[in-house]
């Protein structure tokens, strides 16, 4: 072990290696409910070459490597379940290029979403990207790698669909370029017209390589942004409401939320609809289209647009939103976790009722959120619970509720998003056997010695 530490120091410098207990303590856990497990070392590489050298060292020595962005997944994906080296990518945070005509950017693998946002605000105010609602420290590479979603997901799909190219250090230490950048200086496509090899890395939770560069699509940023909330008293109306709104193709993001507190939100389901425009007229036309699309619900008294006060409006327009942090402290003690399956929008009523049932059964404070993906192709439905970290019993109840929520989601045709290790196992068990075998072939070929984030996506 001393030898590995010395060699890590040789690669990245002594300052960027640690095996001190207090640091390993933090790198051994995330803010969620998964049990902790300490790494043996933490290393912070500053270049692709350093990442290569570390991975080659790990490959030679058979030591696990766990790539880490900001460690915000809540599902334990960066917890080094078998020890080894946590590869903290935060030093690789440079924005390498913005092509404002082709609307894409190339960033290093540890670049936080907040840094890209700030950079675009300052230098390219007519461009934006799909900002997720996770904290601004979340890295772009980790977000696309877990198939994250953001403000533009309703329009353009998962954030991973917006990738235009990758640079990946393979488990052998080789550096692979994925997409147009493999044969051109231009990072305009992650696959087409070539075979799309990005699928070997996106969604694999760091088990097939370390992403060191990401090409990401940028989109027009309009001058104005607005929000409206349509409310209804029954979850049964939600699928039709979403269908009608998405049919207009006039909106930016669409979220849904339901929660019993504060009282203003009790008993109703809230469809939060975002609009953008360069002029009052453009904005008004879009709003009008959406309002009219929902006329029949208003006429039948099944739903209406609520008044959104300036405080609530500002909070909803924030990117990222801070509501999750507020919710996390409802029970005091700062705990928050959710099971967020990707599932059809038509399953919203069942998901909502299941969440009510679980909250009552386990006596928990809850919050339902859904984000529409694509034009209603699917949604991420979050079964969210808040808990007190000092209350073991409450944490156990949350674990049990989340387990039941996951079982329900799978039985209802959903697929877990950023699954815990346990959920990964359940997915693999339920999966079509040929698909499972294909995953096994890929994993074994890319990571023959099983050093990459072991414990995750371990296909039996």
């Amino acid at each position, binding site marked *: 072990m001393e030898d590995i530490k010395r060699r890590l120091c040789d690669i990245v410098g002594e300052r960027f290696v640690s095996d001190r207990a207090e640091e390993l303590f933090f790198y051994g856990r995330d803010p969620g409910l998964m049990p902790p497990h300490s790494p043996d070392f933490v290393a912070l590489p500053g270049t692709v070459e350093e990442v290569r050298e570390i991975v080659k060292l790990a490959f030679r020595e058979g030591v696990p490597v766990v790539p880490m962005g900001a460690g915000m997944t809540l599902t334990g994906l960066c917890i080094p379940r078998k020890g080894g080296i946590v590869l903290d990518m935060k030093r690789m945070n440079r924005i390498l290029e913005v092509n404002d005509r082709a609307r894409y950017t190339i960033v290093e693998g540890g670049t936080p979403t907040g840094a890209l946002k700030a950079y675009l605000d300052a230098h390219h105010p007519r461009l934006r990207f799909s900002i997720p609602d996770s904290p601004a420290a979340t890295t772009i590479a980790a977000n696309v790698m877990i198939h994250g979603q953001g403000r533009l997901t309703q329009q353009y799909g998962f954030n991973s669909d917006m990738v235009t190219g990758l640079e990946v250090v393979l488990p052998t230490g080789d550096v692979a370029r994925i997409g147009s950048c493999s044969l051109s200086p231009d990072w305009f496509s992650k696959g087409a017209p070539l075979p799309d090899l990005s699928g070997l890395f996106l969604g694999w939770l760091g088990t097939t390589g370390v992403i060191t560069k990401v090409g990401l699509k940028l989109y027009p940023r309009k001058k104005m942004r607005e929000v409206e909330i349509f*409310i*209804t*008293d029954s979850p049964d109306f939600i699928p039709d409401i979403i269908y009608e709104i998405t049919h207009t193709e006039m909106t930016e993001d669409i979220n849904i939320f339901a929660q019993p507190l504060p*009282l*203003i939100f*009790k*008993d*109703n389901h809230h469809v939060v609809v975002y609009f953008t425009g360069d002029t*009052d007229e453009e904005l*008004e036309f879009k*709003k*009008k289209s959406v*309002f*009219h699309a*929902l*006329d029949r*619900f*208003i*006429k039948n*008294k*099944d*739903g*209406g*647009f*609520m*008044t959104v*006060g*300036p405080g609530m409006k500002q909070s909803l327009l924030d990117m990222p939103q801070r509501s999750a942090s507020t919710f996390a402290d409802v029970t005091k003690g700062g705990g928050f976790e959710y099971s967020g399956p990707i599932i059809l929008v038509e399953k919203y009523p069942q998901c909502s009722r299941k969440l009510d049932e679980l909250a009552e059964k386990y006596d928990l404070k809850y919050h339902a959120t859904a984000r529409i993906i694509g034009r209603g192709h699917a949604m991420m439905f979050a079964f969210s619970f808040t808990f007190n970290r000092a209350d073991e019993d409450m944490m156990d109840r949350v674990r049990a509720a989340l387990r039941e929520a996951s079982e329900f989601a799978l039985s209802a045709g959903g697929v877990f998003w950023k699954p815990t290790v346990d959920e990964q196992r359940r997915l693999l068990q339920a999966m079509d056997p040929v698909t499972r075998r294909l995953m096994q072939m890929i994993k074994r070929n890319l990571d023959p010695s099983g050093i990459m984030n072991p414990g995750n996506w371990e296909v039996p």
Partner: protein
Amino acid sequence: MSEAGSMFTLQFDEAICASCPSGACLVKCQYLEADREQAKREMLKIFRGEDSRVLQECVTCYACEEYCKRGNHPFYLITQRREEKGILTAPRAITRQWINIGEPRGKYEVGEIKERALSFGFMPQFKDIVKGKLFEDVMPGYFFGQEYFCNVVYIHFANTAVIKERLPRVIRNIQELGVKEVVFMHDECYAAFSSLAPAFGMEVPFKPIHYFEYLYQRLEGLRGDIRPLHIRVAYQRPCSNRLCPRTHRWVPKILDLIGAELVTRTYQDENALCCGSIFRAMYGYDLAADVQARNIEDIVKSGAEYCVFNCHGCQNALSDRLARKGVRPIHMVELCRMAIGENPGFEVP
């Protein structure tokens, strides 16, 4: 409705309606078409519990309460009959949301509550503007929270049951503070105790004072501090002021005192237009958009530099669009504070 709630019945006199020489309640209505005879006929049908198109078409602008100079409460009657017939004005979710918001949980008193105190209703945000010399003689001494909330808004939703249930308790809560006079910072609250409660036979054991009257008296006392503003202002009159129309006379008096010129508009005084906020929530896009567009165009055309608001709801609904058209939104309290040289919280040109 609870047993207590069912005790309160609307004081509506059929004879007053039958002998009405004008039918003004509906003849003047900006949203319904009716001549004098039709107006009387429809109101009597409503009184007798018969079906009337008015029950379907009324948009709840409250204006008929003002148009009826004989104090017969046509809007309260429409509301009550709608409720009895189960005619929903708003989507269920909107009504439910408002009922939940006002659920009587929360009762806050700040400072020393003396015989005269301020009521912020359930809008603590008033603390951001209610300050300075104008309020020196009562502040800090105010109360707010759902248990002091007037609940009048539910007449928009044809739901007097909630009001009958909650308002007597609110009256009791205020009485228990030992106040003799209450200055209400929102005219819907003032109307609750000066109009609605008496109309339903509820006794009010304190004197409600509208904040316009209070402001005028304070400004009179501070005449020496007033620096005439020399600005042109338009006034956005809210629906709630229709329930206490006598307080409207304070607007020109206050503006005159502080040297602000009240511009002439098409939509002012009895002809004022709704901010559209409630229309939007209840009926969707078209009515609200039409009313807001006409209203804003009228304000802009009037040449006003400022639009003065009495109600936060109106201010929220219209501020952004007015500001983008070069008209500065401001609350009446902020304008008065500006006139005595206080900073209303934003840069004054």
